[in-house]
C-alpha cells in the first residue's frame, strides 16, 4: 500500500482511540442535540426558522470552537509524539518524510472534519425525517466552508507543531493564535479599531485575511445576502467581491492559507532534527 495512505490510516486509528477525539465528537454531537432539545428548530428568530436557523447557529458556534480544537489537538499530538519518542521509532522505518507528514495531515483532516460534518448532516437527516424543506445549497456551502476552515487551522497547527520543540510551547502558541484571530473579528477588536479612527480599508483588509472572520461573514451571507448585519462594511465586500466572489474567497482563501502553512511546516520538518 502507498506509504502516504499507510501513514494516514495509522494516524486515523491513533486519533480514533484518543480521548481528545471522544471529547471532540461529543462536543459537536452535543451542540446539535442541544439545539434540538432547546427547541431552536421550532422557534422563529429574526425571520429564520426551522433547519436553516439550526445550521446558522451551529456554524456560528463551530466557528469559535473548531479552530481551537483543531489547533490544540494537532499541536499536542504532533509535538507530543516527538517528545514521547514516537518519531524516533516510526521514522526509523523506511517511510519517506513527505508520506509521513502529509499522511499524518490527511488522516487528521479526516478525523477533524468527520464529526463536524456528521453532526451537521444528522440535523439535515432529522429535517428530512420531519419533512422540512432542506436548504441544500446552504448545506453544500456550509460543508465547503467547514472543510476550508478545518484545513486552514490544521495547516496552521502542523506549522506550529514543527516549529515548537515541546508540546507545552506548541499549545501555548496555538492558543495565542486562536485568541488573536478571535479578537480581530468584527465583534471585538475591529469595532474598537474603527472607533479609534483606523481607516476602514485597513480594518476590512484585516477582516478579509482573518480566516475566522472570513468564515463568519460567508456563513452570514448565506442567510443575509446583503450583509445588513455587517453595516457599512458590507458595501466594501459586495462592491469588490460580489456575493459569488466572496463565497469563492471564503472557500479558497482558508484552503490556500492552510496549505501554505502546512507546506512551510513540511519544509521546517524535513530540514530539522526529527526526534
Amino acid at each position, binding site marked *: 500500500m502507498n506509504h502516504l495512505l499507510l501513514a494516514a490510516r495509522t494516524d486515523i486509528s*491513533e486519533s480514533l482511540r484518543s480521548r481528545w477525539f471522544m471529547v471532540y465528537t461529543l462536543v459537536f454531537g452535543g451542540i446539535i442535540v442541544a439545539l434540538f432539545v432547546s427547541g431552536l428548530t421550532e422557534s422563529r428568530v429574526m425571520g429564520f426558522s426551522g433547519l436553516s436557523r439550526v445550521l446558522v447557529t451551529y456554524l456560528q458556534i463551530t466557528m469559535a470552537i473548531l479552530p481551537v480544537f483543531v489547533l490544540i489537538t494537532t499541536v499536542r499530538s504532533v509535538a507530543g509524539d516527538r517528545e514521547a519518542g*514516537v518519531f524516533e521509532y516510526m521514522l526509523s522505518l*523506511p517511510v519517506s518524510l513527505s508520506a509521513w507528514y502529509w499522511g499524518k495531515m490527511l488522516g487528521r483532516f479526516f478525523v477533524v472534519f468527520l464529526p463536524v460534518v456528521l453532526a451537521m448532516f444528522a440535523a439535515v437527516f432529522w429535517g428530512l425525517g420531519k419533512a422540512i424543506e432542506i436548504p441544500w445549497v446552504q448545506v453544500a456551502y456550509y460543508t465547503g466552508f467547514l472543510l476550508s476552515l478545518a484545513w486552514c487551522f490544521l495547516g496552521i497547527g502542523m506549522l506550529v507543531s514543527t516549529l515548537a520543540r515541546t508540546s507545552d510551547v506548541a499549545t501555548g502558541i496555538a492558543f495565542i493564535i486562536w485568541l488573536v484571530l478571535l479578537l480581530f473579528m468584527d465583534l471585538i477588536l475591529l469595532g474598537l479599531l474603527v472607533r479609534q479612527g483606523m481607516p476602514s480599508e485597513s480594518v476590512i483588509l484585516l477582516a478579509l485575511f482573518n480566516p475566522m472572520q472570513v468564515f463568519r461573514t460567508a456563513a452570514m451571507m448565506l442567510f443575509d445576502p446583503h450583509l445588513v448585519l455587517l453595516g457599512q462594511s458590507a458595501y466594501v465586500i459586495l462592491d469588490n467581491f460580489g456575493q459569488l466572489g466572496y463565497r469563492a474567497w471564503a472557500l479558497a482563501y482558508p484552503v490556500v492559507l492552510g496549505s501554505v502553512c502546512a507546506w512551510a511546516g513540511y519544509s521546517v520538518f524535513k530540514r530539522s532534527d526529527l526526534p
Partner: protein
Amino acid sequence: MISIQGVSKQFRRVSVLNSIDLDIHHGDRVALVGSNGAGKTTLIRCLLGEYNYQGKIEIDGLEPGANRTRVLKRIGFVPQLSPPLKMPVGQLIRFAAGVCQSTPDAMLAICDQLGLDSAEVWRRPFNKLSGGQKQKLLISIALGRDTDLLVLDEPAANLDPEARHTFFQLLADRQQHAAMIISSHRLDEVAALVNRVVELDQGNIVLNDHVADQIDLASVLNCCLTLTRADAAFAETIREWGFVDSEGGRVWRGDIAGPDRLRFLGVLSRYAALIKGIELADSQKEGSADVQARIV
C-alpha cells in the same frame, strides 16, 4: 559498509559528538558503549538520518538523510525505550511490513520464535504490552525483513533467558551477511555478542578495538549447580532461567545461551555463599575435555 568521517553534532551550544571517525564493515558486530550522555543515541540517530550533523556519513555510498527510504530499508532498528504507541499490535505490524516491503507473516514468525503469542496480542494496543512483549515485538519487526545492518539499543534488556537465547540464535543466523551495532551503557551486557568495541565518552571515541570472537552466538551451555542447602530466593531466581531442581532443591540443571554466560555468572555471584559447585559444558560437544568450567 558504514563510513563516518568527521561527524560532529551540537545541540545549541552543547557539543554531543566531536568529529567522530569510524568505519564499520560487513560482519562487524560492534558494541557501542559509554555512559549516559556519551553520545551513543545521537550517533545512532545520525546514522538513521534523523539528525542533521556536520561531517559525512555514508552507508554503502548513500547518505542517510538524503536517501532515507533506500538506506532505512536496509536497517533494522530496535530502540532502547519502546515508543508509546496506542495502535494495536496488528496495525503496527501491518504498517511496518507495508513500508519495509516485508510481510506480516515474516514478522509474526519471529514473534513466535521469541515466545510472543502473536494471536493473543494482535488486537491489543502496543502501549498496553509488558516491557518484554514490546521488546520482542520490536525485535520481530527489525528481524522480520531483509536487512544488512542491525542497530540495536539495549535489545535484550527486557527479555527472559529463553527469549534471549532465541534472540542470540537469530543474530547468529544473520552475522555473516549483516553488520550489527549494539548499544549499551555496560560492556558486560553485550560483550559476548560482539567482535568489536567502540567506546564513546563525551562525544569522543576513546576506544576502538577488536575483541576475541570465539563465542558461538548460537551455542548452548549445559549447566549443573550444586548448593550447600536449598534456598527459596535462589530457587525463584534460577527458575526464571529455566532450571529444574533435584535432590530437594540442592542440585539445579538447565541450559544457558552461550553469549549469556557472563550475565548468568553475574546472577550467580549474588548467591556465592550458597554455591558449592558450578559445572558448565558446551552442549554441542561431548566428553569431559570440553567442559568449559568446573568449580567445585
